[in-house]
């Protein structure tokens, strides 16, 4: 009994401690919520709401800003399934993604690694590599229009070196137009990503490289056997960035240079979305394409994250 009497104050103490601890936790949660609330509100208003709106519009017939939205679910998605342009756009987008990622990131990584070695002149090179990123898309399009036009720099160069048989209307030829656009993305992307890789690679302790060199490893081995495995997680993030850019952002250069042509040779999903929304004014259908892009985006990001996580750990 006495022991029980002694236990009561102890239990009370435990209870009051627990309550005090709970109150602290609750207060922290309220503070956390109050501090996060503006950001949450911002996210709901400007991210989630437009996303839900996109889903809603994809279920409507909306043929112009001034015309009413009429619910027509699932017509837009049935149309999407039967649209002969969708397989073409998917194929072109796939080619663009394949070459736009494989043609940029390995080379960007190599350049970034080279910069991270801090060899003489690396500061100037870093600035030079990054400079294409400072050029606006419209200016970039003008530069390459000058390069690719019938009497442009590329054809003039080929003529000068006696390779006239290789001259083409690079943007007007069905077999070269998509490649010509991908080349622009490669040119402008390598420098940008090399600077990103450089920034990340500088976090790797130099001692690791020195130890590897003592063991007889060359730069090539160090780059791919030491630096690259340590950067896999970051590499995954960069792949996601480049993937998202090509999936939707690269449509800008298509709009400026080829409008998806000649024929459908440069028709990508991103450009098709734009053309359906702003040229043909089929807003509801364009958002159905946007939903497909969104789903592809989410699935591929999850896949990339999974692969990079597995390889890293």
């Amino acid at each position, binding site marked *: 009994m006495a022991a029980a009497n002694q236990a009561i104050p102890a239990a009370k103490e435990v209870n009051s401690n627990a309550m005090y601890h709970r109150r602290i936790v609750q207060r922290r949660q309220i503070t956390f919520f109050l501090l996060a609330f503006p950001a949450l509100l911002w996210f709901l208003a400007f991210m989630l709401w437009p996303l839900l709106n996109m889903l809603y519009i994809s279920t409507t017939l909306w043929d*112009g*800003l*001034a*015309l009413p939205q009429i619910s027509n679910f699932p017509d837009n998605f049935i149309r999407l399934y039967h*649209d*002969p*342009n969708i397989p073409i756009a998917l194929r072109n987008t796939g080619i663009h993604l394949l070459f736009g990622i494989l043609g940029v990131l390995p080379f960007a990584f190599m350049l970034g690694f080279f910069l991270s070695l801090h060899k003489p002149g690396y500061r100037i090179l870093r600035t030079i590599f990054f400079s294409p990123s400072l050029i606006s898309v419209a200016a970039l399009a003008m530069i390459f229009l000058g390069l690719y*036009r*019938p009497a442009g720099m590329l054809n003039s160069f080929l003529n000068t070196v006696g390779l006239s048989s290789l001259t083409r*209307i*690079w*943007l*007007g*030829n*069905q077999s070269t137009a998509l490649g010509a656009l991908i080349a622009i993305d490669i040119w402008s992307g390598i420098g940008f990503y090399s600077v990103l890789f450089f920034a990340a690679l500088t976090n790797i302790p130099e001692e690791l490289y020195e130890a590897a060199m003592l063991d007889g490893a060359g730069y090539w081995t160090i780059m791919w056997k030491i630096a690259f495995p340590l950067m896999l997680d970051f590499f995954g993030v960069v792949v996601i960035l480049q993937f998202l850019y090509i999936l939707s952002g690269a449509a800008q250069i298509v709009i400026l240079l*080829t*409008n*998806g*042509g*000649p*024929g*459908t040779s440069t028709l990508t999903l991103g450009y098709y979305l734009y*053309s359906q929304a*702003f*040229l*043909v*004014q*089929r807003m509801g259908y364009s958002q159905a394409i946007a939903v497909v892009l969104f789903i592809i985006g989410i699935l591929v990001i999850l896949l990339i994250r999974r692969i990079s996580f597995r390889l890293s750990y």
Partner: protein
Amino acid sequence: MNKKIIPISIALLVIASLVMTACGSPQATAPVAATSAPATSAPATSAPVATSAPVEKVTLTIWHNWGPDDAKGAPLQSIFKDFMAANPDIVIKDEVYVDADIPLKVETASAANQEPDLVFVQRVGSPQTWTEAGIALPVNDLIKEWGLDGQFKEAALKEYTLADGKIQAFPLEGYTWPIWYNTSVFEKAGVPIPTTTDELIAAAKAIRAAGDQPIIASGSDGMGLYLFTLVLQSLLPDEEAKKCLGDGQWTLPSCVSAVELFVQLRDAGVFADNVEGLDFATANENYFAGNVGMSHFGAWSFADPPKDLQSKIQLGGFPLPAGSPHRAPVIYSSFSAKGVWVTPNGGAKMDAVKKFIQFLYKPENLARFVEQAGMTPPLKDVPIDASKLNPLFVQSLTMPVEVAMTPDDFYPPKVQAELGTGKLSQLAFTPGTTAEQILADLTALYEANK
């Protein structure tokens, strides 16, 4: 505490007065005295004389694409200037945009009730839906009430009249769209101006042999499409052309034959080298350089060629193939190039809009566009000083041609929007593209835009 009340009160008063001042001066209108009394008419200390009430200045906002680089820009500005001088209570605020950008700008502005009062834009693409969508007001009654009834050419009004009888806009700019033959290139090649496609093929060979190029076109943009369709229509009567270009029945033998004709001509070398990669500006530049035999430019370019070239140009139609239903080489001619659309915002200022429209459509004012820019006027009677006319415009009045119906009149709007990007014409002008490929692309395009 009391010491603080005074400065705070003063500060609040100042802020309140500033706010009230700001609210009391709207941006669009500014009160001005209609007449100003002479300085000596009243002593400085006396109250203002109420001889006339202040008049609200009305601002008319007009969006158009006739900027300084356009031959119609100068006459338009002179009309604005003269109108404002004659109507001091109305201010014209004009904004110049690229023609192709205007429809979307108007539609987005309209969604926010911020559209201009008047829009000068071509009757091609989405403006054709504006009356139905309430972005523009029908002008049937305005034409009657404002004394313009019976003055417009019937063809002009017909183009702007919808199936339900509503007139979408006031027609403003008509055009002819002929083939421009550079006679010096033909003389150098020793061949006559062709009137048949066989003669055209022979002429193209001779022109190439002489070191020049035959027909230049902007194969990579929407303008080249009109040459593609004109070639097709040289073999098709309007009703058949409507079946192909309007209804998308590309499996019809007549439609197939027309596309095959185009491919046959292209493969025979009648179009200049690399034409599939050229845009309109580059095509212009090449033709005006003087070593190209033919081009397909509209009346809007009449003022553009260098003077030494102008005298060498002979206007005509596209040569006819064997079996053509036409009696003479074909051209396009239409009034779709520019209409004046009245928006709901313009409707709220109808008095000012009425004054401006009546001023713009005075025959002597329209004559400025004809004389200075070679524009085909939409009115029946426009007094023109023949000595001031552009020689190419004069030539265009007597061309031995037949007018084919412009495909703009029967394209489904969504097909037209996609074709306007030029990707189909670019494909068609590319050497090696077969008629089957072009027909398949056209079929897919029409199917996708049903």
